[in-house]
């Protein structure tokens, strides 16, 4: 895991469910076929209602029409991010779009586990509501060592909650890597 990353914010509201993250009709694509799996990036967050896509004004697609990756690599969301189904395709799709950090007020359990255990996303929780303070397109930096989010446009700093128990799994890069590192399973 890098010590810092920077990039652009994509801001969302509360209760972004897994059907909005990756609509059920797209769950049929292979996740192991390199070419076909790009479709998950293409359709990431494609079902978020227009007015809520890219706050504060909305109307900004996460992934531009015809593209497989997003211009935004840090998602700032409200409460209960990833609620709904158990589909691991959800954090996977966001990751495939080129985004691997989400900062939300809270997460649904299965999404959170999938993000961590699959090694797809770093699911940070913010200490205070951020989706009304940061705008889509803001340039941000995340300092993983200090658990800090910095808005590079005006140098405001926001504290993030430490990742806690799951940090070793995130640092290892997912559940399997963690289990190998700790000797739970054998290396193949």
């Amino acid at each position, binding site marked *: 895991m890098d010590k810092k990353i920077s990039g652009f914010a994509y801001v969302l509201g509360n209760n972004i469910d897994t059907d909005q993250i990756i609509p*059920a009709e797209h*769950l049929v694509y292979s996740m192991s076929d390199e070419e076909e799996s790009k479709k998950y990036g293409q359709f990431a967050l494609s*079902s978020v*209602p227009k007015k809520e896509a890219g706050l504060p004004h909305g109307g900004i697609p996460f992934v531009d029409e015809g593209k497989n990756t997003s211009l935004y690599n840090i998602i700032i969301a409200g409460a209960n991010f990833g609620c709904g189904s158990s*589909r*691991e395709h959800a*954090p996977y799709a966001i990751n495939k779009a080129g985004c691997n950090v989400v900062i939300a007020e809270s997460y649904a359990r299965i999404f959170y586990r999938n993000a961590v*255990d*699959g090694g797809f996303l770093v699911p940070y929780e913010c200490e205070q509501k951020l989706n009304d303070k940061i705008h889509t397109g803001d340039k941000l930096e995340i300092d993983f060592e200090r658990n800090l989010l910095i808005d590079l446009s005006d140098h405001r700093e926001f504290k993030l909650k430490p990742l806690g128990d799951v940090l070793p799994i995130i640092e290892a890069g997912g559940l399997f890597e963690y289990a190998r590192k700790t000797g739970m399973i054998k290396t193949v």
Partner: protein
Amino acid sequence: MPMTITEKILAKSAGKKSVTPGENVWLNVDVLMTHDVCGPPTVQIWKREFGEKAEIWDKNKLVIFPDHYIFTKNTHANRNVSILREFADQYNLPNYYDVGTDRYKGVCHIALAEEAYNIPGTVLFGTDSHTCTSGAFGMFSTGVGNTDAAFILGTGKIWEKVPESMKFTFNGKLPPYLTAKDLILHILGDITTDGATYRAMEFDGEAVYALPMEERMTLTNMAIEAGGMSGIIAADEVTEAFLKQRTTKSYEIFRSDADAKYFSTYTYNVEKLEPTVAKPHSPDNRDIVRNVQGTKLTKCYIGSCTGGKMFDFMQAAKILINNKVKVPTFVVPASTDIAAQLEVETYKGISLKQILQDAGCVIAQSSCAACLGGPADTIGRAVDKDVVISTTNRNFPGRMGSKQSEVYLASPLTVAASAVTGVITDPRDFI
């Protein structure tokens, strides 16, 4: 130390005397369930991680029900079923329920109950968020993603954070115009879609223990709609009678200690509740049917693991008998057993199937069908600006298909009453 039923079951599974909420424990899994959407990627991850010579930790504990995208021409969806079939063949899996054979069952959560994989005191994981349904049998059950499932497939183990518990007690005698669906929609309105995140929802009270297993499963099924890790109802005589008909497996019944600690407790008198709906676009957007009655509908849907069980069709039949539906109404029996039973069970001497057909309902083959939208050729799928009332469990934007559609969630009684009038209708107008 006093413990809740959930803590007792998790302690047993973790090989510990006791566990406390917030603690991360490694559990020994009794059953792993998967289906056609998440099964193939699970198998792929398992092979990638454990190598080509990967071994399944215990074949007898792996259960696979293709159920989501079954009756479709979509080639990607059909490929998923083929992947499962090949996997089952290659490893000679005893518990694979293939499409197009006598073994095909339909929706996984209902099939788990029918095939007696739901055993009190055990721990079941599934690659589906509604795996919490099995908690109706006094067991711990929850949904996981593909990576977690692949890990279980190879090791039989998984980590879990011991949840805090919330207790929901329903007192009183359930009036004939209410079903378990009204109760759970009522709770959702109170605690919202993240009110139980990372927690176990325990259901209790005389009104709950008066419910048949199918109705108990409706309660635990929708725990996930509140973000719950699991839903649970301690096993009793009703549970034991259900099991006795289907299995000789032994089991252990756990109950919460009287002085167990809860994150919160809620008490309701069911006699005071009213027929309830969740309005578009969230299961917690609760209202009483009376407040939305008259809303014009374009489609009605009775199906899914939540509302496609025998009990649900019996409720619907009570209203549909000698009536005609005014809008297209789709009936999807959750399992093939239920589909067969529809022909056998009667209301006022007429088979339920006859009643539903005479009323003008379209009866589809058992599967998840339009509950989750599915491929374009899925029966009952919401199109354009459809306004649907449905016995399913989710109404997030686009859940049943079209992003422009509006879905109301309701009990089978309310859906049947609404189907007859073509507008949202309180079942008390018929009962």
